């Protein structure tokens, strides 16, 4: 399994998926930087970093997962690499399991980068315009835990997107699903049922109601792991004609 994981990580070298992993958090940093420059009061670390995490969990994470899973799957669909991979003396479930672990790791890295880039953007804006320089210190332990829960709650979303992207050789089904899911998540932000909607589960980690947090976290992570196992088994068993 380690060999398969190492192969999956090496495939990302100079890939569009790797570019996306850097670009999405960087966009968040740029957004924060310019918004802060328009401010007239000193920034408060915790509120800005909380806002950054919220935007990430609400919109950027679901969109990034959609694009990332499509790009990772297309690395095999594009050059029709499945036949070559599946003809090798490697258990097929490992091929798909390694891909799933790799995508989850990438989402974790992107979420961490979002936090890091946000810190850098707040500091840079404060250095350029001392009026908005942040006061106090960020509660990093709390933010790391919060971002960790965001990624854990996103596992179901990742599983659904990856399953679709690997199953269909065309970009269209995975992109339509991801865009549709994010759209409904945005337009139905206040719906109580949103806690059961995979695209809204990550942002529910920032909800004030602890019941919503625990429901979204257990469903997103628990069902997500079940969905990943089912996806791996299904993809490993099916014939790629």
């Amino acid at each position, binding site marked *: 399994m380690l060999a398969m994981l190492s192969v999956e990580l090496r495939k990302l*070298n100079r890939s569009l998926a790797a570019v996306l992993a850097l670009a999405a958090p960087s966009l968040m940093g740029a957004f924060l930087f310019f918004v802060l420059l328009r401010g007239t009061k000193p920034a408060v670390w915790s509120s800005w970093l909380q806002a950054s995490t919220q935007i990430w969990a609400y919109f950027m994470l679901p969109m990034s997962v959609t694009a990332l899973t499509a790009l990772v799957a297309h690395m095999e669909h594009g050059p029709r690499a499945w*036949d070559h991979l599946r003809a090798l003396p490697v258990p097929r479930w490992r091929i798909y399991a390694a891909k799933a672990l790799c995508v989850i790791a990438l989402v974790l890295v992107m979420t961490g980068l979002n936090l890091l880039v946000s810190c850098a953007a707040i500091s840079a804006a404060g250095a350029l315009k001392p009026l908005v320089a942040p006061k106090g210190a960020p509660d990093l332990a709390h933010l790391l835990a919060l971002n960790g829960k965001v990624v854990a709650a996103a596992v179901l979303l990742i599983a659904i997107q990856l399953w679709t992207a690997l199953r269909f050789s065309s970009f269209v089904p995975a992109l339509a699903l991801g865009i549709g899911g994010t759209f409904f998540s945005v337009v139905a932000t206040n719906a109580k049922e949103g806690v059961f909607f995979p695209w809204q589960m990550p942002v529910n980690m920032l909800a004030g109601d602890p019941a919503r947090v625990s429901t979204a976290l257990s469903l997103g992570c628990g069902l997500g792991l079940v969905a990943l196992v089912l996806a791996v088994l299904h993809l490993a068993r099916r014939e790629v004609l």
Partner: protein
Amino acid sequence: MAAAIETEHLRRRFGARLAVDDVSMTVPERAVYGFLGRNGAGKTTTLKMLLGLIRPSGGAARIHGVDIARDRMAAARKVGALLEAHGFYGNLTGAENLALTATLLGAPAREIDRVLEIVEMRADAGRKVAGYSLGMRQRLALARALLGAPPVLILDEPTNGLDPDGIADMRGFLRSLPERTGATVLLSSHLLGEIEQIATHVGVIHDGRLVLEGPLSRLKADLAPEILLRTDDDARARTLLGGRSVSPADTGLAVALRPGEDADQAAAALNQILVQAGLAVFALGAREQSLEDIYRRVAAPAYPKAEAA
């Protein structure tokens, strides 16, 4: 000679269509086996079953005695494959692509240098595959198939995209492979001329059925050759030889020999009939069957010559 690849009554159905129908083929060890057939005849489906990529609807396939359906991993360890779709990652270099496969095979890093040397790709191995020509990708795909020195190579159209020099190199390489490494080569192609120069054995698949198989030299000898003749009145000659199978040839007529009939004796008898009838015989002689002739006879009587060449 033991079989490196063996199938028994192999079948594969796609819905109502039987793509491979009762194929029992034997590829002897150290043979270069040319697998021939038109597009859609069942070649790729058969190769995919041999690689364990699709499951047979019936029958069995074995690689060096290992049943693919029962132990795909053990069978896959014995096979290196070059597939029509190369499946390279364009963002990686040639060497990096090989390194991925080497890692999964558990092959040492020096294997990469060895196979790059064989296909003469060392100089370009550090370039990204996205910038490779089709011929370079084909060579790299062959290098990847050779990783770990598998005893069986399954090659789908290995000369695709190669320039004439590349084709000649590939031909020489494949022909010498069994002697140099002890490997068995199964290659599918529609280039009959190429197969004729490389293969020791051939199998012809038509409409999903294996219609001909055996050592190429034996097939050439067994399948009755034709007598080519040219007279001053070919139409009348055709009438005179009405008891035989006569068809128009490029110049004159082609008279098929009967099974077991000696070509020289037949030529003498034909000459006698024609001369006695008052015809002037300008040319008369046996024509050895090329692989294309054999193929056209058993699998595709209507196959246009230009395509086959």
